[in-house]
């Protein structure tokens, strides 16, 4: 049995379903991110696991204990979890030491033990000697570290992170992110992290659960999600994509591949598992901007070639960020040519077969 097990977790507010029938299994020591746009239900799931929101139905088991089952819930204070809040929620009227020791005092531990534990934890988060400071005397990053120390103080079986990095500025965010992952891995802590930042999710997690409008879109490792997304939503959420919609060609031979006809052009790509070759099913082909090859002359190839005109180009981070408008398409494609493109120049875009992926247009719920 998994360390954490969630079955058919559901929550609605009035007529709006925020979380609909989520399933999840996690191994001990695993770090998982709940990723999705705002309003996708990720924070609601986290708060249901914490016990701050009562689910409408389903079950949550952690470490063999029932957090929620059959409408009965274990009170928050008895779940023995750690949580890091978005604004850190450090109690402003308590010192750093008092903040960290709060949970230990509730468990009536000896003052001597508490003192040792607090300095141990501050050592762990690289803030030794900060016991007597008040939260308002700390920088954002330091407050974050104290919040982490407080969450770890009671040796929780599970740590929940509610967008803990979003209040920090960009530079600090990267450092804190890496520190946090290393710390959790070293202590073999099971953690669930909520974020809307796909880069953060990819860099922090063993696995990611992508959510949209209360539904699970896909669960998998960062590589899985980036390379083999199952839906257009996941493909788009994990990074920039160029997308074409068309009719699936029923007669295409190769097993793992599928062909899509867009106007007169045929594009071939790797078929996602939900793409079943049926007559005239609508499908989408996508290719990441970095994978598109840009030619200045027609490569005289039958498939996966689209001709278009450069409509915009700008130099950024060492390369040419370029938009190419292909006839009959509503939006221009984003590509990174290896040469300096000219405005209005005609270019040929090659979508390499092995780098294209065919996805179902409508997601089977």
């Amino acid at each position: 049995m998994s360390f954490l097990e969630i079955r058919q977790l559901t929550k609605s507010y009035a007529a709006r379903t925020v979380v609909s029938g989520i399933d999840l299994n996690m191994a001990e020591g695993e770090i998982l991110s709940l990723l999705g746009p705002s309003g996708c239900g990720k924070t609601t799931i986290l708060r249901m696991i914490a016990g701050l929101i009562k689910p409408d139905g389903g079950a949550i088991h952690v470490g063999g204990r029932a957090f929620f089952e059959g409408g009965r819930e274990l009170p928050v204070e008895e779940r023995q979890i750690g949580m890091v809040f978005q604004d850190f929620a450090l109690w402003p009227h308590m010192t750093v030491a008092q903040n960290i020791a709060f949970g230990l005092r509730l468990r009536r531990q000896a003052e001597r033990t508490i003192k040792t534990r607090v300095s141990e934890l501050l050592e762990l988060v690289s803030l030794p000697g900060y016991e007597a400071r008040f939260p308002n005397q700390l920088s954002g990053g330091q407050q974050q570290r104290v919040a982490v120390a407080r969450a770890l103080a009671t040796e929780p079986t599970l740590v929940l992170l509610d967008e803990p990095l979003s209040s920090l500025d960009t530079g600090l965010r990267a450092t804190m992110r890496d520190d946090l992952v290393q710390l959790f891995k070293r202590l073999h802590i099971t953690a669930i992290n909520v974020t809307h930042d796909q880069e953060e999710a990819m860099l922090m997690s063993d696995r990611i659960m992508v959510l949209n409008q209360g539904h699970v879109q896909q669960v998998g490792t960062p590589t899985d999600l980036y390379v083999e997304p199952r839906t257009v939503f996941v493909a788009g959420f994990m990074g920039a994509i160029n997308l074409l919609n068309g009719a699936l060609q029923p007669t295409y031979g190769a097993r793992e591949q599928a062909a899509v006809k867009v106007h007169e052009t045929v594009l071939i790509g790797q078929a996602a598992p939900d793409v079943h070759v049926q007559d005239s099913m609508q499908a989408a082909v996508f290719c990441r901007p970095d994978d598109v090859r840009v030619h200045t002359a027609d490569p005289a190839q039958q498939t996966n070639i689209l001709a278009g005109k450069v409509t915009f180009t700008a130099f950024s981070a060492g390369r040419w960020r370029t938009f190419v408008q292909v006839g009959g398409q509503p939006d221009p494609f984003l590509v990174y040519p290896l040469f300096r493109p000219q405005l209005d120049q005609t270019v040929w875009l090659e979508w390499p077969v092995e780098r294209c992926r065919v996805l179902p247009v409508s997601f089977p719920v």
Partner: protein
Amino acid sequence: MATRTVDSVDNRPAVTLSGILRRVLKALVIGLPIFALILLIFYPLAAITLQSIFPNLYAAKPDLTLQLGLIGQVLSQKRTYIAIFNTLWISITTAILTCTFGTLLAVLTERTNLPGRRVFRLLVWLVFFTPSYMLGEAWTLILIPGSLPDQYLHFSKTFIETFLSPLGVIIVLSLKAFPLTYLAVSAALQGLGSEFEDAAHVVGARTARVWLSINIPLLLPAIFAGGLLTFGDSISDFGTAATIAQNASVPLVTYQIYSAVYSSPVDFSQAATLSLVLFALTIGALFLQGRLLRARSFQVISGRTRPARRVTLKGWTLPAFAFCVALFALALFIPVLISVLTSLTHFLERGLVPSNLTLGNYTSVLQDNTNGAGALGRSFVLSLSAASIAGAVGLPIAFIIRRTTLPGRRLLSFLTVVTVAVPGLVLACGYIFAWNAPFLAAIGIGTPGGLRIYGTLWGLLAVYIASGLPLAARLGIGSLDQISQSLLDTARVHGASLLQLLTRIVAPLMRASLLSTWLLVFSGSMFALATSELLYPAGQPTAAVVIIKYFNDLRYSEGMALTVLTVIAVSIMLLLLRAIPWVVGHSLRRRAIRVNARAENAPIAEL
């Protein structure tokens, strides 16, 4: 500070005629409000200080004999220091009591599933607007021997002696003032999200522990601030001092000032010294309260707070509900009931029998053109004018202070801060010295045929405006700060003049706050007892003056009839002002729906 200037545009040298005109205009814009505040508030306050050290300055033959020791002399008189001592300990006790009641009520209505919490929230405002003299009178009429309740419940002597005492005064003051603490704490609670308590729950704290260790400590500054507000309110309260405190023979500073001015021999020195003491105490409380709110070492409002979860009361529901009902019964229902019943009886001592019930008190009061309807009408017109003028002048003052760089705006701001909590009685006392000074005759003030301020309705209007103006300005600043500067800049860029900016952009954006300010000054003036008592022109009393006069003449039924009529008048204005925006908003919405419907039915080509 985001105070970019409104007038920074014209930095060019003023050599042209229009440049000079501009400068004059600018001087007037800042000069007039300062001049008005000085005349209305500062000069009278200064007069009190002058009176207490130059006792002969305001005599018929003024001279500048300095008597610095006079303040000490007055303070060492027994009746002076007894009054100060009483006022201090009674107000401190009141502040502590209101902190308890107000906080408890705020927590119960804001953070629990208490049944009827919405109604209680509304009732707080009714208590807030109730005049303290009404509460004082009603409770006196309950506690005096032979009162309506006494006729049926037969209070024991000990019961009456227990409550017709400083204890009763404290209770009445607390019942009147707890809304101030309530409002301070509930505002803090609304800014206190659930994150801090969630964090405590997660590490294993139960609800009671969360409140004791997290929420209450975080609310302490707000609770103290509320306590200081009620302290300031209680020391300067005259309505209670003139009613139940009189009947309980508890001399308080406010009443002592009143009797120093109005009973012979007149003792201006005592009035001036006590006024100074009162003023110093109020300013002290206000200053401390401001410090407390600013110097909070922690920022509670993070802007990203989640709405807090309500505590389920379970077994505590009944006691909590009973507490709220009892509180409002004592502060509102019972006093109102007694007031209404008293106003309906011929003779109080005959009790509630059909033959003793009458509407005669109302008809006789309404037919009395000097004391009854006349007084009410006078109060009404004066309050209407005072509220409108204070609102109309307060908004530009707030604007000048916050959104211009005119020189002198800091002085203006300072003047409004210092005078915002001047007790009405102190101000009125200052008016007596300041505008009745014989030496003013030299410039034609106070002479027959000259400009007469003291002893006229104009003087009364001036003091009502003076009580409301600083409040209007400070409240205006509060709501002006919520308006983004870019909204005003945009209007300037589009070519709006200062006046257009105020009338077309600022006033509409602040209409809700302007309305509440207007209501506050209006009801404050309608119920103004202290200022009216000291300054009403002979033969032209206001409603509050007449009510207290009836009360002192033991004509309780007529007094209560007039009280009820005054309350009804204020309630009607309150309802009207609340209803107008609703009606306008409603009709606008209906029009929008009609227009939309028409647009939807119209052929697309027409769009």
